[in-house]
């Protein structure tokens, strides 16, 4: 798949996340504390809850249901009850838009 246009950069506040649905799939797009944008699968690997309702703190996203924690930059599961890592996708910014590379 090519790079997909997901949203405008100013749609996501710094240290926050939004949900992005594309082609029957759901993703989470983050505006990191380093100013960069990141994309992961949208559902928690524990119980399929939308991470976009969670809390972004530094480099981590906390799941809204049981407070499981992932590093949204690499998808690493950091705190139980999440054990399984989250899939991540490369992003780039062009003309104020965030593009995501979906394999």
């Amino acid at each position, binding site marked *: 798949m090519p790079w997909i246009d997901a949203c405008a950069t100013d749609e996501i506040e710094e240290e926050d996340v939004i949900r992005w649905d594309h082609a029957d799939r759901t993703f989470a797009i983050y505006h990191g504390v380093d100013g960069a944008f990141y994309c992961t699968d949208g559902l928690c690997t524990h119980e399929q809850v939308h991470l976009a309702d*969670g*809390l972004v703190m530094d480099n981590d996203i*906390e799941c809204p*249901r049981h*407070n499981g*924690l992932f590093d949204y930059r690499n998808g690493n599961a950091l705190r139980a009850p999440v054990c399984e890592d989250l899939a991540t996708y490369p992003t780039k910014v062009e003309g104020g838009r965030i593009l995501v590379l979906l394999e």
Partner: protein
Amino acid sequence: MATRDYSLTGPSAKRAVDAGLSAAEWYHTDVSRKEMKALMKRRDGPPMRDTMIWAFLHVLFATGGIYFWGSWVAVPFWLAYGLLYGSACDSRWHECGHGTAFRTRWMNDVIYHIASFQIMRNPVNWRWSHARHHTDTLIVGRDPEIAWMHPIRLGMKALAYVGLHDTLVSLKTLARNAVGWLSPDEKDYIPQSEWPKAVFWARIHMVIYAFTVGVATMMFLGGLGWKAIIPFLLIGGPRIYGCWHMVMTGLLQHGGLAEDVLDHRLNSRTLYMNPISRWIYWNMNYHVEHHMFPMVPYYALPALHELINYDLPSPNTSIWDGYREMIGAVLRQRREPGYFVKKNLPATAKPYREDLHTHVPERQDRRNSHALD
């Protein structure tokens, strides 16, 4: 009295899954993302302040208890120490288990382990059981933390205020885990990859208890007489003589309310209480709010309550008021299985989302709810 099957591997579990009650969509009051982000914000300041007071008071009361040993003056010191150890541990265990108390992650972990030890809970097992409690709150056959199981044995509930039975059960569980055995229920809610950790932490707890017994024995053999019970008053014992406040507040969380529903306004209780109890309990009296939005730290729960109060049943006005309601309902539940307290909602609230759970087959003969307020 009707008996329900509360095991996680029996017919109730299958029925709950078949009825779509497990890992279901729950009702949530609307809160804007902006407001929720502000409420979820973590800080180290409030929990550090509370933890320093908590630690200082442990030292102060234990010192007083030992200093005045042999005189009646020691008694209030031990009672206060017991309350901090045997009751305040519950809220610290709970909040740090959620990871919501401190902004700094290792601080949550350290207090979680200390409080888990105090409350005699395997820190691994209970992390998972509590996750399940949040996914399937009061769903029979799924929630491992239902405090009021039917038929309710009132004598056992009364005994819980003196934690002897619970302590023995907890020690037995820790000992069982320490030798590598996990029960079928534990195996149901703890992923297999975590089982070795459960065994490891049970062993750590048991080693500390063995050490405590060793010190007490040496003191006794060294001729210190009654002073040899001091190690037990300091470690382990407060789980018995100091747990009354934890039991008092804990039983109110869901007692007399509905099982097998998907709206926390029907199965959880918010009540107002005095500031000392709220400090010990870390604001878990806002229990509907906590279940609806478990990411909100305890110090932001009063603000969340103010924000969504319009959509919730009126809180009980005191611990006494909560007990009056709960005990009345529990006594009735003994006669009328299926009865639960269904409080009226304010005019500003959205109606109860009964459509989310009314298709449960078993509910057909369990519709005896009664409106209060």
